[in-house]
């Protein structure tokens, strides 16, 4: 399916989401409550069939924290981007997608480690690279006077 058809399918599968045509792929932005249902619909629908989770990236948008999911369908070879944002920077929580794609396991641990977003329902949410004395380095307001030279 090309981007126009994908955008149309997405509008049907994910009502209440914001669908934008990005530079390359269709970008579906949902609220955190609708994340799991949208992802499930995208995975199971026979016309989209997104069976592979390629990447989960955590992004600090300045005021909000968000995650970006790149989904691919191995059957139809199309990709779509699913995004969600949380505005609570002190206790950000998003639902985990481990039950849909086991690949999300390590990715979500990395996002938790570097950005501090907790994933509800993750089987084993621990820090991955760093230990507990570090803050959340990928956040834009992370201060480390020793190692990072502020411009």
């Amino acid at each position, binding site marked *: 399916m090309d981007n126009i058809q994908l955008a149309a399918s997405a509008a049907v599968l994910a009502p209440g989401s914001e669908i934008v045509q990005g530079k390359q792929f269709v970008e579906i932005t949902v609220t955190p409550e609708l994340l799991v249902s949208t992802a499930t619909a995208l995975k199971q629908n026979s016309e989209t069939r997104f069976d592979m989770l390629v990447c989960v990236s955590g992004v600090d948008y300045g005021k909000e924290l968000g995650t970006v999911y790149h989904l691919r369908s191995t059957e139809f070879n199309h990709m779509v981007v699913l995004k969600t944002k949380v505005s609570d920077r002190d206790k950000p929580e998003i639902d985990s997608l481990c039950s849909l794609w086991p690949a999300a396991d390590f990715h979500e641990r990395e996002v938790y480690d570097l950005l501090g977003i907790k994933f509800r329902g993750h089987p084993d949410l621990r820090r*991955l690279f760093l230990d507990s004395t570090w803050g959340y*380095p990928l956040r834009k307001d992370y201060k480390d006077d020793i190692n990072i030279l502020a411009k």
Partner: protein
Amino acid sequence: MEEAVKNIPLEEEEYIINMGPQHPSTHGVLRLVVSLRGEMVLNVEPHIGYVHRGIEKMCESLTYPQIIHLTDRMDYLSAHINNEAVCLAVEKALGIEVSDRVKYIRTILSELTRIQSHQLFWATFGMDLGGLTCFFYGLRDRELVMDIFEETCGGRMIVSYNCPGGLMNDIHPNFQKRTKDFIKYFRKTLPEYDRLLTGNVIFQERVKGLGTINREDAIAWGLTGPVGRASGFSCDIRKHNPYSAYNKVTFKEILYNEGDSFHRYKVRMDEMWESMNIIEQLIDNIPEGPYAEKMKPVIKLPEGEYWQSVETARGELGVFIVSDGNKNPYRFKFRSPNFVNLAPLNILAKGFKIADLVAINGSLDLVIPDLDR
């Protein structure tokens, strides 16, 4: 210290062994906490982060040409392909079309990188299993590829030959002849590898049937590269979303269905033959043209999000750039293949013996700096 390891209630006769960060066969700084009963593995837990350098955070304060030099040091065995990924992403975002000459040269160097990475895999896999001679044979032949890289690109392993818009400099006049000589030599030598290791009964008994994963699980876990292709998951980016000169060459995508360690090994051996075929199709036909496009001195990507996948020797490397219009990216994310390939190690190794864990880990062919970034 990191958060407490979750309490694994120890059964009777169960004990925990640490294959520590320094170990001859974990291929880098990877710590595996293995709980065993006798010789049988019950649970494997990888602890990573020993080589975490904060590359993604560093990228937020570097310009795009500077980021290319960081990517060399991630999966250092596919250095050129990593560089190519960033260059392609930047060029796609800016809408620049590089000349055919650049595309051909990039493809040839990528395939040489792939060959050299698989040679190292063969060398270390044999060594892990006890056939120490394989190490010397593999590295001896890899030196020839390293010499080609050194002459043209200036560096053996850490190459940094790509830049957005093309290449840093034109190829050396000797490049084509040396590559052709290498291909001729290696075509005669590669059957030697098969005679030494692949056909050996001891090797096959050690490696067949280990760590099996089927196609659906491979897709669900996101395994790409030779690991995925050995399970029947057709994931070669060079076929599905071709870039550079891959749509101008014909080659086979190696797929097997069994998904065990032996077939992961076989995929890499067969890929070396295919890489040589690709190089032979391109090496004599490099078109004339500029080796780099004219670019602005300061590269600023338009605002938006960009994604580029390439096929490194280990799987799909994804580059995700969030740009806000400045000369530094707002967020730069690498989807590294090794990171995803390590995740199912627990499932692959459960129920096998400790010696098999070494074989399974070797067959995944992980490069830990890529995992940790």
